[in-house]
């Protein structure tokens, strides 16, 4: 396929031009955030958001880390996001596998129920959800937050997985079934490697959303020991203003794991596509 997609010199230049243009559009505001994260106080941010800082205050990052209790909260964020990703990718892929490859009488209805969850965000049903979590005694626990976040991302994950699975031919699985393999091993040995790109996509999207999730932890957690870093950053929002220089520092720190996740996911992505069942 790459043979088809090789570019001539002129084409390459044109393409570079377009890509650089968009890269500038993307990086310019980010650059502003970076510059402002090094400013010593809020006044400089307001006075000249585009100006370089009078002194490069690396201390902002330290202060953001300490002030927002990153040290404590980082671990919580990692646990919550990590568990959510694992749960969602596992459950969504098994569910999609059953719904697409092993349909039964009620599977269309189940799929419809998931679609309903895509359309209606869980935020509206906060009150009933709170009652459920409270009754199960999961309030103010990391487990509770993990379960709630996972459940909130299941619909879209199932949606993506089923879409992907439908576009993948089932020959390999049929062959395995003919050999007498049971669903578990078909899933584990045949399907999972096949759908690596979808898993990578779902994992990445789930991770980013979970990492940045603010509202659900806010409602379901009460003790500061359990806070993820999104709640820690909220410290920088005062009643009428935001401590931008610290906020940007905090946000940029938070950005790093997501970029790492992206790089990892991309690699899985490409690898999964160049092996697996694409070549026939």
């Amino acid at each position: 396929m790459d043979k088809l997609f090789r570019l001539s010199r002129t084409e390459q230049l044109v393409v570079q031009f377009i890509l650089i243009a968009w890269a500038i559009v993307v990086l310019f505001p980010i650059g502003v955030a970076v510059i402002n994260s090094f400013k010593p106080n809020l006044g400089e941010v307001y006075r000249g958001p585009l100006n370089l800082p009078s002194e490069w205050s690396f201390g902002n990052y330290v202060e953001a880390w300490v002030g927002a209790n990153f040290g404590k909260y980082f671990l919580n964020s990692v646990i919550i996001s990590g568990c959510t990703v694992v749960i969602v990718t596992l459950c969504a892929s098994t569910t999609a596998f059953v719904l697409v490859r092993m349909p039964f009488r009620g599977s269309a209805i189940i799929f419809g129920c998931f679609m309903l969850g895509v359309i209606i965000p869980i935020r509206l049903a906060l009150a009933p959800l709170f009652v459920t979590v409270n009754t199960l005694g999961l309030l103010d626990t990391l487990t509770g937050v993990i379960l709630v976040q996972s459940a909130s991302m299941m619909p879209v994950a199932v949606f993506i997985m089923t879409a992907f699975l439908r576009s993948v031919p089932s020959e390999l699985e049929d062959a395995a079934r003919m050999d007498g393999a049971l669903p578990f091993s078909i899933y584990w040995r045949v399907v999972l490697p096949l759908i690596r790109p979808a898993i990578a996509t779902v994992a990445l999207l789930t991770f980013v959303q979970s990492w940045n999730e603010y509202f659900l932890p806010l409602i379901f957690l009460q003790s500061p020991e359990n806070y993820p870093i999104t709640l820690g950053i909220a410290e920088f929002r005062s009643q009428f203003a935001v401590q931008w220089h610290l906020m940007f520092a905090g946000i940029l720190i938070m950005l790093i794991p997501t970029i790492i996740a992206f790089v990892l996911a991309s690699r899985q992505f490409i690898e999964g596509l160049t092996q697996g069942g694409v070549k026939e």
Partner: protein
Amino acid sequence: MKNFKLTGLLLASTFLAVAQTATAEEVTIYSWREQEIPLWQHISDNNLIDGVTINFVRLNSDDYDTKLRIDLQSGGPDIFQGRAGAAWLASFIDAGVIVPLEGVDLSNMAPAAMTAAMGADGQIYGVPFAIQMESIIYNKGVFEASGIAVPTNMAELTAAADALAAAGVTPMSFGARSGWWLNQVVGEVMTAGMIDDATSQGLIDGTVCFTDPAFVATLEAVAGWQAAGYMNASPMADDYGAMRTAVALGEAAMMIDGVWSSGPASPMYEIDPDLVMGFMPVPGDNGKVYAFGDGTYLANAASEKADAVAAVMAFTATRDFAELFVAQVGELPAYGAEYTVEDARLSMVAEMIATNSAAPTPFFAYALNAGEPSYGQLVADGYQALLSGGSTAAEVAATIQAGLNSWNYVGAANCQ
């Protein structure tokens, strides 16, 4: 014999120790005001309320209402801060979460602050905190540079604005994108400055209509400023933060704002550390500034630590607390009787509030906000319509009146 004495002593001291730790209760307070964190830290660390430690939980202002209500369903805080006004208190009263305050001596609290704690039935449900003042805030440096004295009437204000405009400074900075600022600050400061107290009270009681020339005049004044070029070029594009930044940078001279912008934590000082701000009422016929109680400390009726809670509530109505409030928070407490204010700025503000603040507060009046669309909503929309050139002052006033009439507010019969 000796053994008995020793054991007796030991027992007694153990009892005492146990008793001490047993009475050291932790009271959880919910708030959206980060400026109170040092205050309660100080109170807790120094054991100023005997046997009580404070766990002060500060939530983001935007999330405060939702989080508070959700948490109250599973116990919740022992004490929480409530926003001012009977309208806000109503749902909590109906739910039985708060009950009329008992056992606290409120005789020393400033009368202006008491409305913040009053329910629709006229009873007091908590201890008010913080008196805020809203008025015109001006950059003293800019005034001095253009040789302008504080205007004492509207004509002088216009003259001052002309002089400022000539000097290349925006006379009046408006951040009309922020709806909350339009109704809670601008609307109220204009009424306080231009409409006399009796008429304002009439607006609340329904005896005076919003189509009355007195009220329309407040809108016309603002429209006039825009027409005369005294405002920033696009008030609708600038928000509250941009408005303050302009004044702090000296690009604008005046803005209608609250005293919190001159407090120690205000970002305006970070923009210009030498900034000195002055306060003046809108120099209309009434010429008064606007003061209100910012909120109330409310006790959760379902709290298990009733004694500790009562102790805290009683403490917030004392003079010691008032002085601590000034020192630690940098704002004026709701305490009305004598207390020491060492900060020059705050004592001047206290003076203004005591001698020259308007009594009626339409924005917080339950009578005007009991239905939808509320007075607050209508004023915000009205000013935005006015400043984007969509409506004239008379039309805006008529819309406000019609909106209030639609849910039969107290003056509906009178003002068709």
